[in-house]
């Protein structure tokens, strides 16, 4: 068995008296691709943000690549962050920079590439999401789906060890969804990237996941392959994965 790249133990996080993460323990092996499902507001984004140190959990440990994220100094955390990319749910493109500058920003701030290398990498990343012709555009000139794909290009351009995708295909049409999901799969295979993806999209999950978990009320409710989840007898899962029409008890 490959060593764990991510080990999360007993993670708790509340906002005021609202418990969001309520004792999560999770391991992701190197090269493994985990998909997280869960209803809106169950804390999927919060979990991802805790992993990169954007939010501090109330209790528990997160060890990534042998380093305890919660107790690292900012300097050490930044070293670790250079090997991680994060695709934000809302893409979080820098409004004041063009698409090209958005991609160059992460690259030039993190490593010493020559101008030529940077241009090559930008072209590669934009080509991967089929948006090479949007290089000079400003984010405000892009559609929602295009923003998402640029966000994706920005996440993969550094070719990191670990990528966290927060809903990579939400808002994309079915064809683009498949293309993007395949792109994520290809990256995983070519670069041996480890990934954790939050999604509501079964097509996407089917393409990219090695393993799936479902969050419910701050805990991991189930774990397994897509088939396991879809064939589960649990009424919540039946409801969630659409094998049954909406009925009561659907939280």
């Amino acid at each position, binding site marked *: 068995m490959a060593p764990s790249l991510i080990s999360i133990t007993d993670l708790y996080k509340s906002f005021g008296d609202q418990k969001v993460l309520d004792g999560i323990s999770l391991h992701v092996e190197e090269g493994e691709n985990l998909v997280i499902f869960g209803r809106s507001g169950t804390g999927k984004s919060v979990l991802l943000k805790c992993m*990169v140190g*954007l939010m501090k959990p109330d209790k528990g440990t997160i060890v990534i690549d042998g380093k305890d994220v919660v107790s690292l100094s900012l300097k050490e955390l930044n070293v670790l962050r250079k090997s991680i*990319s994060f695709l934000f749910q*809302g893409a*979080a*493109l*820098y409004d004041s920079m063009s698409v090209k500058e958005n991609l160059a920003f992460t690259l030039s701030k993190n490593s010493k590439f020559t101008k030529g290398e940077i241009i090559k990498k930008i072209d590669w990343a934009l080509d991967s999401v089929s948006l090479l012709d949007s290089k000079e555009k400003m984010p405000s000139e892009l559609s929602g789906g295009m923003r998402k794909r640029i966000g994706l290009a920005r996440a993969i351009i*550094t070719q990191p060890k670990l990528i966290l995708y927060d809903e990579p295909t939400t808002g994309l049409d079915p064809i683009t969804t498949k293309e993007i999901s395949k792109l994520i799969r290809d990256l995983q295979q070519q670069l041996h990237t480890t990934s954790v993806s939050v999604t509501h999209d079964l097509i996407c999950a089917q393409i990219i996941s090695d393993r799936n978990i479902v969050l419910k009320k701050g805990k991991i409710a189930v774990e397994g392959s897509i088939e396991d989840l879809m064939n589960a007898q649990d009424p919540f899962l039946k409801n969630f994965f659409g094998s049954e029409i909406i009925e009561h008890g659907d939280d």
Partner: protein
Amino acid sequence: MSSKNTYLTRIASYFNEIGALGSFVARFFKRFLFPPYELREVKKHLEELGVKTLPIVGTAGFITGLVLTLQSYPIMTKFGAEGFLPYMVSLSIIRELGPVITALIFAGRVSSGIGAELGSMRVTEQIDAMEVSAVDPFNFLVVTRVIATTIMLPILVVYVDFLAILGGFLGSILVMDTTWTLYINQVIDVVKFSDIIPGIGKNFFFGFIVGIVGSFKGYYADKGTEGVGKASTTSVVVSSLLIIIVDMILVKVTLLLWPPA
């Protein structure tokens, strides 16, 4: 919740806010004292600030000089002191009106802009995105803006003072017999270094206030578009108020250091 209770929480949050602003300022200096600096960003902000504010502060300055002259002329005549008009106008402008009017307009235009800009970056997670890509957003976004406003405002004041004196001259030729050479000689005659230095010097403080308050409000904006609007408007209110308070303190200090002859 009782009304007394809300009142207390309001006072508490007021002092909380002052404390938070204080540590924001401290963080600025901690960051400011150690390189690397994002000089390219500073330069970009300086250019933007210039383009954004030169026309309005120039217009306001010119009109202030003009109106001040027109308003003061009848009073000065009453005391038979109309010959002192250029003295009075230029001193008022250089010591007080130029700096404060420029600073207040700057606060209205720039502090709100910074508040909105950083606020929307906070709300749309752009600041988080920077942090994740191992860039220090405080250094990249806040320090650069504060440096730019602190440098820019004193420069603007020199420009505004000049235009206001020009406005004063226009006012003078409207109401009395004078020439440019005569007028400007009278101004040069009376204006001393000890008027110019504090007049311009205090704008380093005002520029700093505008930059730091706008950044503070934007950097910690609440989620949602409402948060952006709030960051923008409260930046203006807080920075204008602070400018007036700090001006009062600095005038007192200046009078102590350079007592009027």
